[in-house]
């Protein structure tokens, strides 16, 4: 990659055993996370999961109850926010309403005593980068939300911080604008080589942007990995359900001759992995791994099959989406390509998938509670 040179500008972040308590509430519970220089790391999770607390700790707005935090190899615990040299982009832009766009972006440079000529050059470069150069003389109140956020981004990168923190920066914008700005942020990350830490509760956004994603739940990190790892190999049921669409099936497990099988809705299913003793198993299936066949046709040995009825059929343009209600009342979601056989509501179908795609996870009621 051409970025090997610029990547040096990003700082590594090391969070070790970070715990933050507010009275009896534990916002962060022994969180450890290593972020590589120049990496785009997204902290993903529902509200109250600890992702924003983590960001505030790194920014210096919140102290840790216990734990270690270093940026670029140096501990920054106890260093006040204004000495950390970290860029922060807030969800609500936080542009200074009494300063023009140009003054806003120049502010961190003025604080650093950079002389006027150099300051103007760097302000122009930062505004160019976010495509807001024509707006330097406007006041923030004269800009749209998306424009304000781009100015806020320019202000956060103009002083070349080795680390940029973003707290749901696109949360207040509509979908189309959000999708476009996601690509802009990705481009800017590539051009700068700065380490980006991005907080969001939107799993699609996390998949679009990130090199790696840390999934937070109830003050802990459930799993860290690339989007693909999280989607294909979720470590916990929570991760599996939070990232992407999924179907979960429950049944009684038994292990015989090295093979674990489950009885779901009266039918036998073979799993591809074993669980630790005592854990209640749940099967997590991705909609595109499932296929449908007309009822009661014989299946291949390498496949699992469950009988059900189509309860909803949706045409999506690029394919179809079906809801299949199984005999025990549980509902499966299936995505079928247009060239596959199509079904109508009420049809009896066999729901099929490869045994190798049938992964068992430990059941965890926290995964349901937090997904409201």
């Amino acid at each position, binding site marked *: 990659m051409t970025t090997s040179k610029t990547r040096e500008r990003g700082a590594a972040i090391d969070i070790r055993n970070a715990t933050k308590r507010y009275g009896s509430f534990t916002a962060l519970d022994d969180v450890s996370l290593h972020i590589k220089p120049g990496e785009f790391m997204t902290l993903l999770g529902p509200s109250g999961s600890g992702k924003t607390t983590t960001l505030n700790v790194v920014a*210096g707005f919140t102290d840790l109850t216990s734990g270690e935090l270093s940026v670029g190899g140096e501990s920054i615990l106890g260093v006040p*926010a*204004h000495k950390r*040299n*970290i860029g922060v982009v*807030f969800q609500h832009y936080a542009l*200074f309403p*009494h300063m023009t766009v140009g003054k806003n972006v120049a502010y*961190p440079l003025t604080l650093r005593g950079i002389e006027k000529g150099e300051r103007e050059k760097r302000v122009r470069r930062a505004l160019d980068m976010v495509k807001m150069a024509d707006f330097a003389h406007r006041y923030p109140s004269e800009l749209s939300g998306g424009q304000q956020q781009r100015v806020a981004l320019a202000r956060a990168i103009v002083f070349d911080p080795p680390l940029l923190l973003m707290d749901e920066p696109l949360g207040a914008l509509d979908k189309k604008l959000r999708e476009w700005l996601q690509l802009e942020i990705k481009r800017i990350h590539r051009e700068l080589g700065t380490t980006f830490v991005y907080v969001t509760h939107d799993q699609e956004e996390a998949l679009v942007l990130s090199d790696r994603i840390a999934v937070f739940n109830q003050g802990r990190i459930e799993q860290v990995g690339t989007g693909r790892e999280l989607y294909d190999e979720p470590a916990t049921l929570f991760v599996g359900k939070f990232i992407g669409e999924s179907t979960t099936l429950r049944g009684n497990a038994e292990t015989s001759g090295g093979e674990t099988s489950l009885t779901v809705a009266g039918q036998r299913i073979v799993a591809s992995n074993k669980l630790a003793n005592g854990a209640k198993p749940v099967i997590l299936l991705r909609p595109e791994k499932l296929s449908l066949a007309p009822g009661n046709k014989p299946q291949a040995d390498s496949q699992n099959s469950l009988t059900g009825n189509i309860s909803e059929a949706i045409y999506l343009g690029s394919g179809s989406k079906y809801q299949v209600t199984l005999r025990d009342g549980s509902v499966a979601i299936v995505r079928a390509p247009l060239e596959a056989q199509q079904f109508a509501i009420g049809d009896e179908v066999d729901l099929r998938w490869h045994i190798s795609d049938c992964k068992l996870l430990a059941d965890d009621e926290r995964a349901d509670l937090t997904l409201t």
Partner: protein
Amino acid sequence: MSQTIDTTAPGGSGPRQANGVAAQPRRWRLAAYPSLLALPAVLLLIAAMAYPLLTIVSRSFSEPEWGLQNYVWFFSTDVNIQVLLRTFSISAWVTLVCVIAAYPYAYLMTVVGPRMRLVLILCVLVPFWVSGVVRTLAWVILLQDSGVINSVLKAIGFGGVKLIRTPTGVVIGMAQVLLPFMILPLYSVMRGIDLRLVQAARSLGARPALAFWQVYLPLSLPGVFAGAIIVFILALGFYITPALLGGPRSTMLSTLVQSQVLSLLNWGRGGAMGVVLLVSTFILLALAAPLMRQRHKQASRS
């Protein structure tokens, strides 16, 4: 009248709207002229403000005979000029004391929890419900030579200070009475300031004092100006407090007006003094206006 207003006022009485059909035509008429709802206030202002003001102005030119003699008298009498200047200077001091005392208090109101905020608001408002005369008499007891303040000072080994019948005493008393008029507008502006802006400034490299000075303070200035204008103007016309707490060297214009009108029955001169005070207030406000003009719109808060 009150009945028609009831049917059209927004969120007006529920039961009345039940007879909807019958009330319909009347409601239409008033709905077409919503500005009529301001009529009571307009009438009151005309009767209680505009008419007396016009009377004062015309009498200042017409009593005892038509001409400028009252104004000539005012500006050629040294005492009057002195008292006019003193009125402005005491009012300015009162305003300054109020700003300094109210700013941290109003800020505290924006950062504490709801229960503490209620306590703070009550501390501001309760003195409002006590008559100004009572409060001023309380200040007499506190400030007099053998009063509470001087007793305490002497008890801890300091010499006494002269407070009662001095401009300082007047400023202290007036500032206490007028403080709520500074705190409330300040609080309402400060409540609208997004504290995350200060956080943003810190993340950009501003140490806390600088972040306050460059971000919070400029955004709170509209509240300071609003409160300052209210306090200053109210202070200019203060009568009871300076009369009770002040001495001959802290007489304010309202006391002079009182003696002209009530003791000497010289309505013309009293009127002229009022007009001079009014006009000079206008001039001062006109001079201050460019300072207060906001060069930006307040950040909208979601």
